């Protein structure tokens, strides 16, 4: 079977500096894939490339073996790639419900005319979107805050909501940018369980950037290690643990010497 | 909430002060004029003349309507020299304040929309100063409007006068025209002058425009200079002319300036200075060939406001004169009756000369004058009979 997501020899330059160079990532469908690496290794840049916020300078990105490099971000999201952000990006002045609904809207097919003239289809779809969004919130036990402002949620719930919002797109691939950021060991353990549950319950493939090695090692089937924008290793947790270049990179040695 | 309170406060205040009209028997006459906006000097003159007239009539007891004599109650509306506001003010005067007739607006851009309102409401309107023929003509039918009159000549006549003067007196064979293309009266005056001047054998060597609000005309003037005309026709309002003239002179243009009645405000002399010295323009009357009536008016006006009345003032005064004569002749405050009497006035001796409405039209038959700006005042040069 072919990979769900292939980042094929991608390079991204900002003016002079090269954030990502000849990067390879291959995510099998159904896996949980970890992306690790020291700060500034270009992990988030990689996510921005996959989700279309940046366009690769060179190389290609394939989702379900169809090239998505250079598509507009909105389109890529609809193709089934959801994401969360390192620093949470909810619509803080909108209600929790609306945050989910806006994502869910991409499933609704009524036209602008249906909306403006309030044709039956419009009402149907809207009701359905509210219903299903509330359902989603229930499964994330956020339902009782549904009509509060997203910005007023506690930090943990905001993280959850961001994931719920991404899942409202009905994605096959979910990109999580440091989901455990700012959590203590206990919370991280819960998160591990939570992510397992998400993976099982929504049948999504997870790709996560994470610093908590413990979480990554527990959760991930495969791991890619980035350093200075290069893939320096890819493999199972065991292989990665044993990989000298990874250790070198983490101990601050220059990772790309050989 | 605070702001909401502020709003409600000002609103209710507006309402209270807005509607508090006393109603002792009187003849309500509306004045719809340009107090604010592009040409406040015009509005001011108009208002001054109106107030002077009403003061004098009321001092003498009022107007004789049938057997009763009633004072005039002057209702003033400011149209801001804008078309839509002119229409709204006309509506207000005619339908809300229920005036027997409306004087003004002065500028064509306001007079045309206001005239539609007056015509529709069957209420007499006399524009003192609007020379544009669309003011009294219904554009869709081409027939004259029934209830709309004016106290001045039309642009068609003015163009003939100016073209003749240019050819015969100034002896100019070539002329340039430079005007504000986004302003009502100047537009028509420019076009008509071009037509008549060329018909009478002159040659228009350049026809340049600017837009309202421009202050730098050097580009167009340089262009005009390169065509080397003997005279330049400037149908522009009093606050543009001085700038054009000064810039033309500093570009070394020596041609003679000729202007339309849009020039005629004392302001032009204040602002223009040396640059417009010696220029000619067409006007509705001259203080120097004034009849006894005019003499008296000028004296009163000067006494009250400390300045010479310009033609807008004189024309407004005449417009009121015409209206009052119509009211006394008709002996009734009914709008229809006033209209009938006004159209029938055989011959009215006004400040701006004798006038008489052409049969079935609101345009009076009256003469124009050519003035020259000399030593800081308007000097009479010639009369032009229709």
């Amino acid at each position: 079977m072919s990979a769900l997501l292939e980042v094929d020899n991608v390079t991204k330059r900002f003016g002079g500096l090269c954030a990502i160079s000849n990067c390879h990532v291959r995510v099998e469908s159904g896996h949980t894939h970890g992306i690790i690496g020291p700060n500034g290794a270009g992990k988030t840049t990689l996510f921005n490339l996959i989700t279309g916020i940046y366009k690769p300078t060179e190389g290609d990105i394939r989702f379900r073996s169809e090239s998505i490099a250079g598509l507009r971000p909105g389109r890529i999201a609809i193709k089934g790639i959801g994401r969360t952000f390192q620093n949470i990006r909810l619509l803080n002045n909108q209600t929790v419900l609306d945050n989910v609904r806006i994502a869910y809207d991409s499933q609704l097919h009524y036209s602008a005319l249906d909306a403006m003239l309030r044709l039956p289809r419009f009402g149907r779809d809207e009701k359905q979107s509210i219903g299903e969004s509330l359902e989603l919130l229930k499964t994330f036990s956020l339902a009782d805050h549904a009509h509060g402002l997203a910005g007023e949620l506690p930090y943990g719930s905001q993280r959850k909501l961001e994931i719920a919002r991404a899942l409202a797109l009905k994605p096959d691939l979910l990109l999580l940018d440091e989901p455990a950021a700012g959590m203590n060991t206990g919370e991280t353990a819960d998160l591990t369980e939570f992510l397992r549950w998400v993976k099982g319950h929504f049948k999504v493939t997870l790709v996560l950037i994470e610093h908590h090695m413990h979480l990554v090692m527990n959760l991930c089937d495969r791991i890619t290690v980035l350093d200075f924008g290069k893939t320096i290793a890819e493999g199972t947790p065991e292989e990665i643990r044993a990989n000298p270049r990874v250790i070198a990179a983490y101990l601050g040695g220059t990772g790309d010497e050989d | 909430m605070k702001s909401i309170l502020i709003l409600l406060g000002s609103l209710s205040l507006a309402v209270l002060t807005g509607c508090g009209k006393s109603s002792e028997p009187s003849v309500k006459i509306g004045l719809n004029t340009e107090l604010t906006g592009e040409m406040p000097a015009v509005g001011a003159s108009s208002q001054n003349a109106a107030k002077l007239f009403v003061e004098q009539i009321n001092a003498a007891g009022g107007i004789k309507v049938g057997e009763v004599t009633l004072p005039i109650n002057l209702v003033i509306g400011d149209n801001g020299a804008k078309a839509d506001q002119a229409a709204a003010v006309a509506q207000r005067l005619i339908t809300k304040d229920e005036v027997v007739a409306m004087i003004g607006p002065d500028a064509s851009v306001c007079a045309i929309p206001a005239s539609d309102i007056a015509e529709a409401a069957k209420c007499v309107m006399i524009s003192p100063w609007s020379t544009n023929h669309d003011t009294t003509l219904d554009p869709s039918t081409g027939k004259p409007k029934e209830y709309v009159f004016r106290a001045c000549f039309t642009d068609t006549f003015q163009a003939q006068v100016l073209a003749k003067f240019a050819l015969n007196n100034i002896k100019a064979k070539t002329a340039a025209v430079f005007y504000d293309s986004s302003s009502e009266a100047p537009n028509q005056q420019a076009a008509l002058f071009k037509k008549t001047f060329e018909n009478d054998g002159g040659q228009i060597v350049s026809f340049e425009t600017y837009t309202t609000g421009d202050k730098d005309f050097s580009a167009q003037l340089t262009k005009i200079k390169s065509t080397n005309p003997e005279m330049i026709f400037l149908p522009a309002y009093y606050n543009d002319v001085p700038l054009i003239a000064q810039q033309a002179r500093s570009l070394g243009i020596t041609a003679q300036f000729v202007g339309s009645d849009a020039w005629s405000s004392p302001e032009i002399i204040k602002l223009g200075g040396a640059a417009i010295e010696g220029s000619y323009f067409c006007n509705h009357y001259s203080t120097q060939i004034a009849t006894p009536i005019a003499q008296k008016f000028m004296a009163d006006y000067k006494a009250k406001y400390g300045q010479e009345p310009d033609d807008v003032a004189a024309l407004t005064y005449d417009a009121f004169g015409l209206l009052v004569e119509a009211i006394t002749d008709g002996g009734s405050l009914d709008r229809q009756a006033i209209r009938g009497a006004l159209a029938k006035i055989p011959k009215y001796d006004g400040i701006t000369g004798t006038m008489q409405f052409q049969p079935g039209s609101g345009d009076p038959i009256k003469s124009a004058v050519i003035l020259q700006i000399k030593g800081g005042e308007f000097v009479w040069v010639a009369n032009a009979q229709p």
Partner: protein
Amino acid sequence: MLDHVLYLAQQSINALQQGSIYALIALGYTMVYGVLTMINFAHGDLFMLGAFACMLLASVLTPVLVVFPPLLSFIVILLLVMIIIGVLGASIERVAYRPLRNAPRVSAIITALGCGLLIQSLTLVIFPYSKSMPKLFTNTTFELFEMPHPDAAGASVTLTITALQIVIICVSLILMVALDFLIRKTRYGMAMRAISFDSRTVPLMGIPVDRIISTTFLIGAGLGGAAGMLYGLAYPVIAPSMGILVGWKAFIAAVVGGIGSIRGAVLGGFLLGAVEVLAVVMFDSSYRDLISYSLLLLILIFKPYGLLGQAPNQKV
């Protein structure tokens, strides 16, 4: 042939004069935008006040100033005008804009719009009629060149420049160079550039943001006032409404040059002047606005952030 050269030369002098004034005003817009990313819609009316301030000062100070040579008195008045308008601009910022620093940006813009309207209507209440500007010095016309007109006997083709035009062009050039130096070489300039680069982290670096912003308004408005005065002298019939059109045009100039960039504003100003004159030279003058603004629009389409502006750095 030669007469055509003279014609074009004359037109370029005209363009230079207009352009220098547009540039001076555009500077005010661009500076404020640089530090606050806010469009100061009151700027056009501060410009207008510059002309009125000059008129009043001249009438007040003439008895004092007759003793000086005209050029000196001109400079004195210019400086006074710049100070007055500058202070006014800064105080408007203090009273009307600063309280809205954390409100949505647009409400600051609308407040600016309101301030502009207020200034304009108050001036109208005081000066309902157009005023004529006093002459600060005799405006002699120099005939640089003269030749007989090729196809009209007796007439002549001339190339003229007035003392006023020379003064205006020189003064504005001097001011622009001075400003450019201020921005690039002084601590204030660095701080200002820092703020416009990243307003969030700068306070952490111990830069007194409020003072820098006030200074920016002071300078920007001062330049606007100077422009107004020069404008008033060049076109000596001044009216309270004169700020609207010129203001908006200068704003366009600033954006075409690349809003936020000082040199861009200057470039944009001169470009606008040139384009307007060129449109008249090449086409019927009634097409002037149509052509010049279509051209500017085209420039913006091909260089979306202006000629010298750079795209804002968007953080993800």
